[in-house]
């Protein structure tokens, strides 16, 4: 294949598929109880300089209890697959990020991320490599397929490609230009799910974002779950399993684990809390004050939920079941 163009962005994570195979070969296939706390999972699996990823988005089914624990333990120099809202803002707000494969970090309806701006514009983040949204998901898909790259028709002709680590080649079958995206293997992936068993089998309700691909692209996979259920629930409905247990290294029971984000059919997002962060994140001092109150100032996810208060959490559940915001009092 003739190489026509190569993006000048850094290939942060090398797509070594043979090493990935060896790694997966050694992964235990034993059905063992993998439950642990956020603190233990982060201590055991997420080290300074690790390349990590989260799914879905910081306000939707996102492993916030795990991200908060990373901030609490101060794991630094992180390299990140940057598709995020609230969760990546926490890591950026705490200045823990060194390199980014970036597709979108922003606050959606509330606009740009002040933390991303400060970290990139100050040069504290050393590397920003650009991708499209599907580009990142397809990179996970390539890793999930066990191949080093995937051909796609996005990104062609743009600066997004120029500042990525993608390559453009002449397709050996059609002769047309095609964009090749390198597989992206995560050191650690984190996914929040609706239910899992003690071994790590997991189900997700509603849209699945890029969970299927990311789970299979992660060398180490940490699952947080709203609820632990018996394995029979999986054996009775195996078609519903999106993540089989052998991909999983840790299972954390984290009710309201996506707060202040939402969990479809269970609780809506906490607009009051999100607005509090949007305002706090405008300035480094108020950012620090927010982190002090909601992350450093509590020992774990349970204490965080106590701080938010069960009454408010139940209101969020109430709205998800069909009550209006007005009726719920939030």
């Amino acid at each position, binding site marked *: 294949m003739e190489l026509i163009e190569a993006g000048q962005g850094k290939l942060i994570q090398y797509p070594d598929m043979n090493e990935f195979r060896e790694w997966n070969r050694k992964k235990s296939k034993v059905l063992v109880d993998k439950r642990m706390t956020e603190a233990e999972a982060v201590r055991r699996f997420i080290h300074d300089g690790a390349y990590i990823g989260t799914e879905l988005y910081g306000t*939707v089914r996102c492993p916030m209890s795990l991200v908060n624990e990373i901030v609490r333990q101060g794991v630094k120099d992180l390299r990140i697959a940057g598709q995020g809202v609230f969760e990546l803002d926490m890591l950026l707000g705490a200045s823990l990020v060194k390199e980014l494969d970036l597709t979108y970090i922003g606050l959606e309806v509330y606009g*740009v991320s002040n933390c991303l701006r400060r970290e*990139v514009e100050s040069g504290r983040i050393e590397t920003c490599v650009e991708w499209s949204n*599907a*580009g990142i998901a397809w990179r996970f898909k390539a890793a999930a397929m066990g191949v080093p790259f995937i051909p796609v028709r996005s990104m062609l*002709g743009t600066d997004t490609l120029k500042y990525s680590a993608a390559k453009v080649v002449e397709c050996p079958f059609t002769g047309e230009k095609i964009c090749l995206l390198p597989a992206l293997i995560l050191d650690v992936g984190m996914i929040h799910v609706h239910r899992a068993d003690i071994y790590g089998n997991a189900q997700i309700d509603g*849209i699945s974002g890029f*969970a299927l691909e990311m789970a299979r692209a992660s060398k180490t996979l940490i699952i947080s779950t709203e609820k632990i259920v018996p394995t029979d629930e999986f054996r009775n409905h195996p078609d519903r399993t999106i993540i089989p247990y052998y991909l999983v290294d840790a299972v954390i029971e984290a009710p309201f684990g996506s707060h202040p984000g939402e969990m479809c059919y269970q609780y809506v997002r906490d*607009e009051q809390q999100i607005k509090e962060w949007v305002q706090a994140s405008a300035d480094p001092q108020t950012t620090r004050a927010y982190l002090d109150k909601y992350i450093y100032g509590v020992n774990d996810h349970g204490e965080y939920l106590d701080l938010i208060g069960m009454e408010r959490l139940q209101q969020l559940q109430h709205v998800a079941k069909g009550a209006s915001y007005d009726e719920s009092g939030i």
Partner: protein
Amino acid sequence: MSPASDSYNPSELLICTASRLMKDNTTAFIGTGIPMLAASLAQRMHAPNLVTIFEFGGTGAILEQLPLAVGGENTFHRALAASGICDVVETAQRGFVEYGFLGGAQIDAYGNLNSTVIGDHQHPKVRLPGSGGANDVGSNCWQTIAIMRHDKRRFLEKIDFITTPGYLSGAGAREAAGLPPGTGPYRVVTNLAVCGFDDVSKRMLLLATQPGVSVQEVLDNTGFELLVSSHVEENLPPSAEELHILREEVDKDRLYI
């Protein structure tokens, strides 16, 4: 169309203008913000079978409540399918998605969009969120519609970064870059005008002005040489019915308007 209302704000005008471009029984990629409101309005007005597609997997939602996130539950409320990002973008890559709605901080005469950086990429003056799904939509949907505020800081001869492809450097450039043939920008909807693109040069072409806006005003607020159609129309203002539905049903909590 029912009689025009005399009072509306710029957001309402953008939403109503974009909504009228959404056709019944078509597929449209919808992003957060104005496109969502426009799609919800269109479903209640003239396009009940508009198939909305949200990038994290929602297909065919009925937009009774406004989503606040592109992965939120309302993006697959009473939908036809809830899948994932690869499935929906691959659906566009296979040619199933007619329209894609986009926004950006900057746009040029060929409809290229910037949502990545203001200034130099290595040392940006402003770091913006990045492509997100925009590049995928702009690459793979048949026709894209950009929704923008219209001023000289946003409508530039040369934008700082091409995040999302329009017609790139002009006629034939998309195909030469390897993008799917026959795709590209269709309309640019702004608070001052609706623009299309010249068939030959692929440069932006003024098609219609918004109510009370002159052609000169549009040109004065555009930072590149804007082509002008031989017959520039004036858009009808939002109708009383559109505004009523928008205010009382689509966004009754006034989250956006």
